[in-house]
């Protein structure tokens, strides 16, 4: 029995990635990281900034996502995101720029808990990327 399912990552501009032979996807869902295997129950959730890991026969790919929505249905995982970068090709200067921008955001006073949480998440992830 095959353990593979389909993964589609789409940007507003284009289809970012489409893979048929994915065995597991680890997504940074809003309420904690979530591993998705074949025959997962249909689910809709959204993402917080984090690392998205895709496992397939050909190996493991890592992506950095800032936000997005995921939908799993009929063994197809769709990820809709406006900002996703492959971790191998990510631009160092973009990371540091985005890190300093986000830190500035955090220093603002009028943040609600939710956005404060998202922003600090983003900072943590960006820091871990730049330290690698």
């Amino acid at each position, binding site marked *: 029995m095959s353990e593979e399912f389909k993964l*589609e990552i*789409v*940007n*507003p*501009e*284009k*289809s970012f990635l489409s893979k048929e032979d994915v065995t597991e996807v680890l997504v940074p*869902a*809003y*309420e904690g990281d*979530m591993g998705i295997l074949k025959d997962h*129950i*249909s*689910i*809709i*959730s*959204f993402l917080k900034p984090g690392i998205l890991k895709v496992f397939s026969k050909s190996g493991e790919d890592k992506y950095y996502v800032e936000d997005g*929505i995921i*939908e799993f*249905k009929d063994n197809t995982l*769709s990820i*809709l995101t*406006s900002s996703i970068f492959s971790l191998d090709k990510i631009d160092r200067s973009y990371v540091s720029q985005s890190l300093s921008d986000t830190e500035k955001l955090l220093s603002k006073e009028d943040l609600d808990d939710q956005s404060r949480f998202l922003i600090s998440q983003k900072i943590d992830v960006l820091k871990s990327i730049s330290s690698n």
Partner: protein
Amino acid sequence: MASLDDLKKRILSVKSTQKITKAMKMVAAAKLKRAQENAEKGRPYSEKMNNIILNLSNGISDKENAPKLLAGTGNDKVHLCVVLTSDRGLCGGFNSNIIKKAKAYFSKITSEGKNLKIITVGSKGYDQLKRQYNDKIVNKISFKESKNINFFDAEKVSKIIIESFQKNEFDVCTIFYNKFKNVITQIPQAQQIIPLKSSETGNDNAKDNYEFEPEEDEILGNLLPKNISTQIFKAMLENSASEQGSRMSAMDNATRNAGEMVDKLTIQYNRSRQAAITKELIEIISGAESL
């Protein structure tokens, strides 16, 4: 009758106009191809988004407490119209068609005694609307600097809309743009984005049982603003494809017309040159005869 010199100058000037329109047509054709590709590439995202929203809104049991972006404010007094046009002219009826559609809607709204607010995106729309509706225009946005249509621009527009919605500045929001059908046909569209019309979210057959994490309304609250950006982005993509298509056919027509004009002027030029020669000959002959 124009002199030979004048005719010559006119032929030259029409020819150089023709060169320009021909070049513009080529450029528009190349850009059209890209714009069309972009519009096609962007489709999966907006379709998926629509499906998810549909599923979510079906899953919401408590319609009363649904997010306002979905359900509306309950009022129907202030209408916000977002008119998407191009930044450049010379594209046939492209901008005028949108404006015409928008103006028909405006007059319908005002005749029903409702308030009207306008946001123009693209400088041409502002130019055409400012005379008649200057006091209604609350904001004008132009993306002249950005070369390509990108999602950030769409997000900027939707941010403005959502912020003003949260301040209760309007009840209904409609966007106007041209839908690209083919090179010669673009259909001006009016699409209501706030509150979301259930008929535009698709068919009800796509209903599925989903797990939601976090709760439906929380996801929906997060998703609806994104959907607005997506819808605007889609409209911008369609618009840019339409603009290039419209420009291409307009420039094609202009090139053809210029060709016809050159032919006509050339005939006129040749005739009057011949007439001048004949006249001169007659003068010489009659001069010789009189001797």
